[in-house]
């Protein structure tokens, strides 16, 4: 494991993994979309708008999972000061923001037919919005601090502080009385949802996870390469600056 913490080994590993992950993403996404649109039944109450669920729920899960992964990377940054952890953190923030946005948008689209409004200010929706805002703040922080190691430490601290929001999102439906659905898949006593809807949902969730992993690895790889390039150009400039001055 530690062997792959070396950025060079990591690049090699990522290079080998990415094609497989991309293939797995394509396969599972294809299967998931097929099941969603051609196999899964319409809901007797909701009609075909229930199909939004197969996008909404996986993106909601991924928005939280991404934060959890970012938090582990943040710990890596703080405890080991490892550049790979820095890159993993940085790469996760925009992905998290995109999945959260997807969750918000699909939720709103679903809310219009279901609740008669695009948006309500209940605890679940609000805490997801806060998650989105935290992602945006992190992106802003990454953009503002030029020096990568310093930006990583600052972002790690903010990430760790913001992690309290995750349990709030997860349990908001249980702690407060909300319009939003309580957990029906991951709950004590097994899923309270029929198999014909559960399977497509789970496959879509797997597909989204693969999609995330592919994009995340690719973004980490880009970040490492960008840093190397930056470092090379700085070194070259300083070396030449010196020879120029002594000439």
């Amino acid at each position: 494991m530690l062997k792959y913490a070396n950025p060079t080994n990591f690049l090699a590993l990522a290079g080998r993994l990415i094609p497989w992950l991309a293939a797995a993403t394509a396969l599972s996404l294809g299967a998931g979309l097929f099941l969603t649109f051609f196999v899964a039944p319409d809901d007797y109450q909701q009609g075909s708008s229930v199909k939004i669920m197969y996008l909404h729920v996986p993106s909601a899960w991924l928005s939280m999972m991404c934060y959890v992964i970012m938090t582990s990377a943040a710990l890596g940054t703080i405890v080991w000061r490892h550049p790979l952890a820095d890159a993993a953190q940085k790469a996760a923030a925009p992905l998290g923001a995109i999945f959260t946005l997807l969750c918000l948008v699909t939720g709103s689209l679903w809310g219009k037919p279901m609740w008669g409004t695009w948006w309500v200010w209940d605890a679940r929706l609000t805490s997801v919005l806060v998650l989105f805002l935290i992602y945006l703040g992190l992106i802003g922080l990454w953009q503002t601090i030029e020096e990568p190691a310093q930006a990583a430490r600052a972002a790690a601290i903010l990430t760790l502080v913001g992690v309290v929001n995750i349990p709030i999102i997860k349990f908001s439906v249980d702690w407060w009385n909300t319009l939003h659905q309580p957990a029906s898949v991951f709950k004590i006593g097994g899923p309270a949802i029929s198999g014909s809807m559960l399977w497509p949902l789970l496959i879509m969730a797997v597909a989204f996870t693969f999609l995330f992993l592919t994009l995340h690895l690719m973004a980490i790889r880009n970040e490492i390469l960008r840093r190397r390039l930056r470092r090379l150009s700085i070194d070259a400039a300083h070396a030449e600056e010196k020879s120029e001055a002594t000439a």
Partner: protein
Amino acid sequence: MRSPLSALFWRELRIARSVGGGGAMGVVFFLILVSLTPFAIGPDLNLLSRIGPAILWIAALLATLLGLDRLFQADADDGSLDLLLTAATPLELIVLVKCLAHWIATALPLVVASPLLGLTLAMEPESLAGISLSLLAGTPALTMLGAIGAALTAGLRRGGLLMAVLILPLTTPVLIFGVSSAAAASGGTVPFHIPMLILSALSLASLAGAPFAAAAALRARDA
């Protein structure tokens, strides 16, 4: 693109961009302010749509003013302001161009984002267009008034609050007519164009007057 003023304009935009995506931060701040209100007021959609224009206008006001506090302060700290005084370009024009760049980087994104935010506050479509138009007409006045405050506090090294305190009272007319034109857009007794005309007049007047006031304040600073 070779004149001093265009050089200044592009420099300002480039600096704005380097900081957390410049305009983006202003929009995010705006977004946060707008979404804080329902947290505080509670999820009563009727109430929210009733006070929606007010919330959007106050948030825009704050986002514009708070982004402005370093408009001249940064230049004063790093010595740029002194050097700008030795340029052949009149200081009034320099102020105007800096304000223009700031408006484009900060206020314009707010104008664009406001209808989206209005949606979350359950505002009606006509109201959404109204709020955008009124922000477009009114934010120049906010930027110019803010520039006066920024110039007054440029030497003091703790702008933020002080500047807001100096300028916020002066912005009340803009706020009042801004909200009332947004309200007029979604029906009401006043026709839409009247508050809009007043708002535009306020913006034009401050565009004409504020550069002189700000330039005078900058020159008066004990450099």
